[in-house]
């Protein structure tokens, strides 16, 4: 138990050190990140993925408490942001705008889903050809699809206009087909 508790406490102390160094002495920041990294490495070495998950949960919970305290303890005064906050420029309502939104939805959701599924299928195929056991190739496909879809949606959503959202999906699907195609 001690081999889990000690690095767990280390991760929590790492967050505390980050808070201490925030806007202040830089060595605290370095110490904080070092402590967190060290704690997670030790936990992973001691208890594998479980240890990593426990350590990350402890660090995040500590950060939540620090934020809660910051929220409660903040002095009661009106403050304004010292900088212009980045903002989204909302388009004025037009039918063309609606069509654009529908196109964006279709490209990111159903088209993105199909493209990522094809790439996942391609990954499974190439893993099989490489001699992986089915449990590994299947698991690879099951994890690749949501990850690829998330990345694809990120790339697509950062493009200007629906037309530019098409090519990332096409590239993704093409890679999947190439991996699958028994060349």
């Amino acid at each position, binding site marked *: 138990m001690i081999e889990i508790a000690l690095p767990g406490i280390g991760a929590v102390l790492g967050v505390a050190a980050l808070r201490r160094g925030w806007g202040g002495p830089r060595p605290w920041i370095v110490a904080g990140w070092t402590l967190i990294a060290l704690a997670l490495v030790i936990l992973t070495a001691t208890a594998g993925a479980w240890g990593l998950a*426990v350590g990350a949960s402890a660090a*995040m919970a500590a950060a939540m408490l620090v934020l809660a305290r*910051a*929220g*409660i303890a903040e002095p009661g005064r009106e403050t304004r942001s010292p900088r212009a906050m980045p*903002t989204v420029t*909302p388009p004025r309502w037009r039918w063309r705008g609606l069509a654009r939104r529908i196109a964006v939805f279709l490209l990111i959701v159903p088209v993105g889903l199909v493209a990522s599924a094809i790439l996942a299928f391609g990954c499974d195929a190439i893993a099989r050809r490489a001699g992986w*056991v089915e449990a590994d190739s299947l698991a690879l496909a099951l994890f690749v699809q949501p990850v690829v879809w998330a990345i694809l949606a990120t790339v697509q959503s*950062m493009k200007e206009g629906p037309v530019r959202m098409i090519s990332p999906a096409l590239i993704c699907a093409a890679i999947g087909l190439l991996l699958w195609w028994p060349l």
Partner: protein
Amino acid sequence: MSAPRRGIARLVDSALAGHAAIGLIAGALMYVIALSGTLAVVFEHWQRWEQPLVAETPAISPQAVQHTVESALAADAGKPASEHLFVHLPTDDLPRTVVTTDHGAHYVDAAGNIVAPEAHGWTEFLLALHINLNLPITIGILIVGALGSMLAALAITGVIAHPRIFRDAFRMRVRGGRQLAQADWHNRLGVWTLPFTLTIAITGAAIGLSSIGATMIAKAYHGGDLIETYGAIFGGEPEADPTPAPVANVAAALEAMQARFPDVRPTYVTIEEPGTAGQRVLVLADHARRLIYGETYRFDAAGHYLDKVGLSDGPLGRQAAASTYKLHFGNFGGIPVELAYVLFGLAMCVVSATGMSLWLQKRARRGLPSPRLEGFWKAVVWGAPILIVVACWMRFAIGPKAPFAALFWIGLAVAIVGCMVRPEALSPVTLRRALGAMIGATAIVHLLSALTAPLALIAIDVVLLAVAAVLIGVDRVTGRASTG
């Protein structure tokens, strides 16, 4: 501005636009899933809370489990034979033994006698709300899986859109203007829960979308047989032989488990094709300090050990796939991790709620106020938890078969229409206080009606009272009436 700075600024703007676009696509449903997921983390505690006076069995002997199996099959006499029989063995989160056949589920006492029907309809509604949005499972789980991927995309675009991620790490200006306060909550909570968000997004999406990948692979390599495909990871089904046979010797299997694998804790017993010559006993056992949901140990009908599936030490892919569930639901480290997951889940609800709210405020600031959209969002943010509490009241007033899903979704639709037609009718502060009062009243009534319940269940009522107090009195702490 230098060229690299202009490039970064363009990237930030693009990421912010993408963040908003995905948020608008997924916002409301994602909030409902985050809210129900937060509650689902402790679903076994809700299950106990919903039926607080059912006898608990912290431990049960192999012989009592055998008696349970025989009693359940005898109770089903005259009905079509069950294809599977399950016995949930007592665990820390649910110290009750439950036997389930194709015809129903019942709690049993320590001697293995059936004592009460399992009747946690409200908890099941909560779980279904999170897992499949109360839709038919095939389509519902796909939609939720898709939202998992969109959540991961939101997290990635959120990070790219946040160039001062480290410099602002702990900046909280909750007493600044409304937009500033909400932006700080949104950004800080979003950043510090990033590992959690990505973890539950990807594991949730992997679970939800698995049917697509598995179906494609099944069609390509297994003649469309999904069970055979999934068998590569979770273990296959036995060859059916419907010839009648005495019920399997579960007691022998459990005794063999104690003798051969003393370091693991059996949590579930499954009999496949019970009462037939083809029956087989599976014992799912929890492995300490592992993320896998358990290892499946297989026994023949006489209770002789055959083999295990290899979830604990088989191919890496099998172990990884078996680790998605505990990682997603947060039940890998006892109460402390569960509470941490509840905290992170609440943070995700705040991030989700403030995200859309910020977008609406920015529209208004640009001269495009959207009172009806604001009404819509207010109805979703406060209507969803209020309706979950109303569903809970229905559970205790009508019973476990009450139409929870219909109440929730019809109620939410009515609330949305109402708030869009009259956006000014109820302020978010009023709704928040109403929610607090409803939760407080629920806790008090539950506490008074179950004074003899185990301490752990009384603790839930105490926590609910604390939540109610926070919802009603949070203005006293922050010094302003949050309008978010």
